[in-house]
């Protein structure tokens, strides 16, 4: 696979604060890459450097085979939705898109623009002034303008934040569609479920560095080698009782937490789960439920701090 973005030791400092200090990252052609990190981690700063909104402090990057010094040459192939940008409020939706389309070298007809607005969930808002759009509608039209001019790389900074669930699902579908058309997508989001679902690879940004990098599954499996099990019993198992009982067991059980009626424990191996259930029943507990706790990207995220 070809690299479409190649970042080496890219750094940004605002005044005396180092926001990013040495990002190394490659993004491959055709993948959906999800970038996560807490508020102020520097995701937008990173994206803004890649897209020519702000200047780098040091380091370098290559994008679509072109060095950052020649970024102007490839702007036509990159579609961008920046984190904050106002739209031209006085324009009507369709007029705005046609203007953006011209700047992006788009050749579609007026009918195609109307179709695009429909696809993005803005049917009927074509003739409305952007001033009168709701937050979510503005978000949608910002996404739409990033798709103009048939870019091969699409960079979206929090495309679904603030959208209603249905619209967010539509945008996720759209992203998957775009990937199937062969496009590369770099996006950020605070919705970790979303990132988990649609990203081929994920990067976690923290302390100005890419702290973790991999497929969602790799990240989830890497966090701990232990298996998490949630148990629901009658009477309800307490941590105290568990400690008492497990003292006599020939395998390790580690209490993690209680969640409502469940007790979550960690065990090292698969067969310990079988042993655990046997021992609990043996000790007079009625075992109602025993299920594997999936590591979520959220756990990975929390642990990466």
């Amino acid at each position, binding site marked *: 696979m070809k690299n479409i973005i190649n970042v080496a030791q890219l750094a940004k400092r605002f005044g005396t604060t180092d926001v990013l200090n040495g990002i190394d990252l490659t993004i491959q052609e055709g993948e959906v890459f999800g970038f996560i990190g807490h508020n102020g981690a520097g995701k937008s700063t990173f994206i803004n450097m890649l897209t020519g909104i702000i200047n780098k402090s040091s380091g370098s990057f290559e994008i679509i085979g072109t060095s950052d010094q020649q970024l102007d040459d490839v702007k036509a192939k990159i579609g961008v939705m920046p984190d*904050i940008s106002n739209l031209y409020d006085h324009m009507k939706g369709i007029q705005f898109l046609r203007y953006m389309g*011209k*700047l992006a070298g788009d050749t579609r007809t007026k009918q195609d623009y109307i179709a695009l607005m429909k696809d993005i969930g803005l049917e009927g808002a074509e003739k409305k002034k952007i001033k009168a759009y709701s937050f979510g509608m503005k978000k949608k039209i910002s996404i739409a303008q990033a798709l103009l001019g048939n870019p091969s790389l699409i960079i979206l900074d929090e495309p679904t934040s603030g959208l209603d669930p249905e619209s967010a699902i539509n945008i996720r579908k759209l992203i998957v569609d775009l990937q199937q058309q062969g496009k590369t997508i770099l996006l950020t989001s605070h919705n970790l479920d979303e990132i988990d679902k649609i990203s081929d690879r994920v990067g976690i940004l923290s302390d100005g560095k890419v702290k973790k990098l991999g497929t969602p599954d790799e990240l989830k499996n890497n966090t701990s080698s232990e298996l998490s099990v949630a148990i629901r019993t009658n009477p309800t198992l307490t941590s105290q009782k568990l400690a008492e009982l497990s003292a006599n067991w020939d395998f390790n059980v580690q209490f993690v937490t209680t969640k409502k009626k469940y007790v979550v424990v960690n065990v090292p191996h698969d067969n310990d789960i079988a042993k655990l259930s046997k021992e609990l029943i043996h000790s007079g507990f009625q075992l109602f439920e025993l299920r594997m706790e999936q590591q979520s990207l959220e756990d990975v995220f929390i642990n990466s701090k």
Partner: protein
Amino acid sequence: MDTGEPEEFRGGECIMVHILWREFTDSFKSIRSILIILFLTFISYQSASFFENNPGLVEEFFSTGGAESSIYTAAISLIVLMFGFLFVFAISHDIINKEIEMRTIRLLVTKIPRWQIVIGKFIGILLFWVVTILISYVILTVISGTWHFLDYLQTILFLFYAISFVLFISTIVLKSKLTMFLGIILGISLPIVGLVSVFSDKWYMIPFKYLLPYNYMENASFSMLILLIIGIAYLLISVVIMRRRDL
């Protein structure tokens, strides 16, 4: 307004033509610019009619050595000299900083090179003035019977300078409220300072003499090219500043 854009420029290189065209058409849409156009047109018409109805005055002017053309265009030339900066500021003081304030500039810089944004906007505004002044000159031509090309060129060169200066101010001062205020101050003071500096020999007036356009306006000569050069310098500095800026 989204009709009439030239279709043949849809290549990567000439994308700035769309910025230019939008700036040009938007310029006509404000009340301020319509008032300015009406005002200039009215003055040209009135002054030309006045001289047309008083041929004695024209002959007298002639016999004292004046060129015929200058008397018809005197009014409009004078108004542009005195109010040109004010007018250009009024219409375009926020040409750059408004987009930075609103962050709409981000939609532009991710699509086209920054120099094309600056230059595209400049040419759009220049074109607005070329057309506006042309309207006045067409009226003058119809009434006086001659086309006063050199006077037209001189007025446009003055405006070329004024527009690049205003664009420069809008690039270095990032608050549009401030440039509106500055525009009024500079629009009034620049002509005064400029004209005084032409006739003054005080040392502190020298920079104004050579940096402001008034010294180069006395006659339609080669020195008017200096206006072009200073104007281009303002534009280049603006482009450099824009390229370095985080938006």
